[in-house]
């Protein structure tokens, strides 16, 4: 039994982590929708969802329920295989791509070293690109299979768009790869770690080692391309409701639609994680290692949230809110205290905390852009992708390599 455990420990750990990850991801996606609606509502000076549960916190559950219970009609004349395959494929790839993201540093459980993140491949970033490359099919197939000209146009558009921007995205990352000299995301994160410098050593600045070169250009190229890859505003032409009803998932309802939906948000999550890892030092803390007090920031945050929850619960209109929210607040505060008291645990939390913080910053940025920017015209999109983004990212590669050659110790 025991040696079996040791032999297949890797597998077991993997399975456990997969379960946890999938659960977390789904939750995050769900609440991402909530967050999006809230933020956009406030940007547009509205309230957003607030009936279902306090602050509409139960809204995602309600949506999920709705998706599950909704009737699922299959239009006539669709290509069955592709029609069913598309959403599964999309979701599958989207979730798989998360498997290689390292959310935190290695750690020990029961004397067995493992890490945040499921697979630690030595070419993880290539794998990531491979998966994103494949994820075109979901969209294209969906558009084509559901025998509907809007869907087809949407599918064609999005596949074209994805192919075009994938190039830019890949190239924009090359700069980082040059600096890191490594394909594995963990390696990339680790080579950004220079405790005395803090955030200056991240690849976006790349002050850390002698020969780096700031990847600001690379980051912007990457970020724009990533937005396009995930078909988000201002690049959401595949589902431009004003032109083609809902793009490639016009003909999809209930769970299949949900899959597309989840896949989209997961993709957002993935690219944000990737941006974090590549340019913003992954799980690394932005502060120099000498500033020890910064390790209590998680506790601080929890205190703040708890306090806010308790404060808001006073005189909240619904009964439920008045009853539940103080409990939640106190729970948060307690967790914060526990973290503060157990240094190991606190240290264990640090990595994921920073990672998640950065990722959420990106996600917020996404939502913010959605609330702000109008949509591109299709030809503008293509022109932008091919004639601006691609050359700039290539220029970035050349520039970076040149500077590195120049500064590299010979």
């Amino acid at each position, binding site marked *: 039994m025991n040696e079996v455990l040791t032999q297949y420990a890797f597998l077991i750990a993997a399975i456990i982590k997969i379960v946890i990850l999938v659960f977390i991801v789904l939750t995050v996606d769900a609440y991402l929708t909530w967050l999006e609606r809230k933020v956009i509502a406030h940007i547009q000076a509205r309230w957003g969802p607030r009936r279902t549960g306090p602050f509409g916190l139960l809204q995602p559950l309600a949506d999920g329920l709705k998706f599950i219970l909704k009737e699922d009609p299959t239009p006539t004349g669709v*290509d069955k*295989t*592709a029609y069913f*395959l598309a959403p599964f494929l999309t979701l599958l790839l989207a979730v798989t791509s998360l498997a290689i993201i390292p959310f935190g540093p290695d750690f020990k459980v029961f004397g067995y070293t493992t890490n945040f993140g499921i697979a630690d*491949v*030595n*070419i993880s970033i*290539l*794998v990531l*690109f*491979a998966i*994103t*490359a*494949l994820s*075109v*099919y979901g969209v*294209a*197939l969906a*558009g*084509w299979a559901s025998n509907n000209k809007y869907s*087809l146009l949407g*599918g*064609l558009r999005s*596949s*074209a768009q994805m*192919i075009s921007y*994938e190039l830019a995205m890949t190239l924009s990352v090359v700069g980082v790869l040059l600096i890191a000299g490594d*394909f594995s995301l963990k390696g990339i994160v680790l080579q950004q770690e220079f405790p005395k410098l803090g955030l200056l050593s991240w690849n976006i600045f790349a002050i850390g080692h002698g020969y780096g070169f700031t990847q600001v250009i690379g980051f912007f190229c990457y970020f724009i391309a990533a937005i396009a890859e995930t078909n988000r505003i201002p690049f959401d032409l595949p589902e431009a409701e004003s032109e083609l009803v809902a793009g490639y998932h016009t003909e999809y309802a209930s769970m299949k639609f949900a899959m597309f939906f989840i896949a989209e948000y997961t993709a957002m999550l993935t690219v944000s994680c990737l941006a974090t890892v590549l340019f913003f030092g992954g799980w690394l803390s932005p502060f120099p290692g000498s500033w020890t007090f910064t390790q209590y920031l998680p506790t601080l945050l929890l205190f703040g949230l708890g306090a806010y929850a308790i404060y808001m619960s006073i005189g909240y209109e619904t009964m439920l809110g008045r009853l539940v929210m103080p409990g939640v607040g106190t729970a948060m505060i307690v967790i914060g205290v526990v973290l503060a008291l157990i240094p190991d645990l606190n240290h264990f939390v640090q990595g994921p905390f920073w990672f998640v913080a950065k990722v959420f910053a990106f996600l917020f940025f996404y939502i913010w852009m959605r609330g702000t920017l109008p949509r591109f015209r299709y030809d503008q999109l293509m022109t932008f992708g091919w004639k601006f983004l691609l050359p700039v990212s290539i220029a970035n590669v050349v520039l970076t390599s040149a500077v590195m050659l120049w500064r590299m110790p010979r």
Partner: protein
Amino acid sequence: MSATLIVFFVLAALAVLGAVNLIVQRHPIHSALSLIVVMVALAGLYLLLGAEFVAAVQIIVYGGAIMVLFTFVIMLLNAGEEEHTNFSKLANIAGIPLAVAIAGFIAATIVHSGQPLPPAAAQGSLTNTKTLSMMIFRDFVYPFELTSFLILVAILGAIVLAQRER
């Protein structure tokens, strides 16, 4: 029956089934999908062989670019079920035997080729991406540049071909 062997057989079966399906399917999209399956399976085999970079490139370029192009064109031309004409007697009669002959011939050659090859991937991951890139940019730099030129020409050709004459 080691784990790798099992994985190999699974992937091989996947590849062969995909190839067969490519033939069986009547609709080009389905053929394309099965071809993608084959390619992914092959990528898995490459990983099994320890050639991870090639595997990644296989999926990125073949899966992510070339086959997308195929599906793209299929959709663009809205190609339907292929009509089953039988104008070429010769092909119908001689096709299968010839294919079998060639495959068998190659296989036979492999099987009794005099010198026994060492089992693949015995050297582990001897070509990590670094050595590979060394190879490309040192020994094979001229072919590499040539391929880049080839691609340029291909781009021009594709544009010239596909643009509607105005």
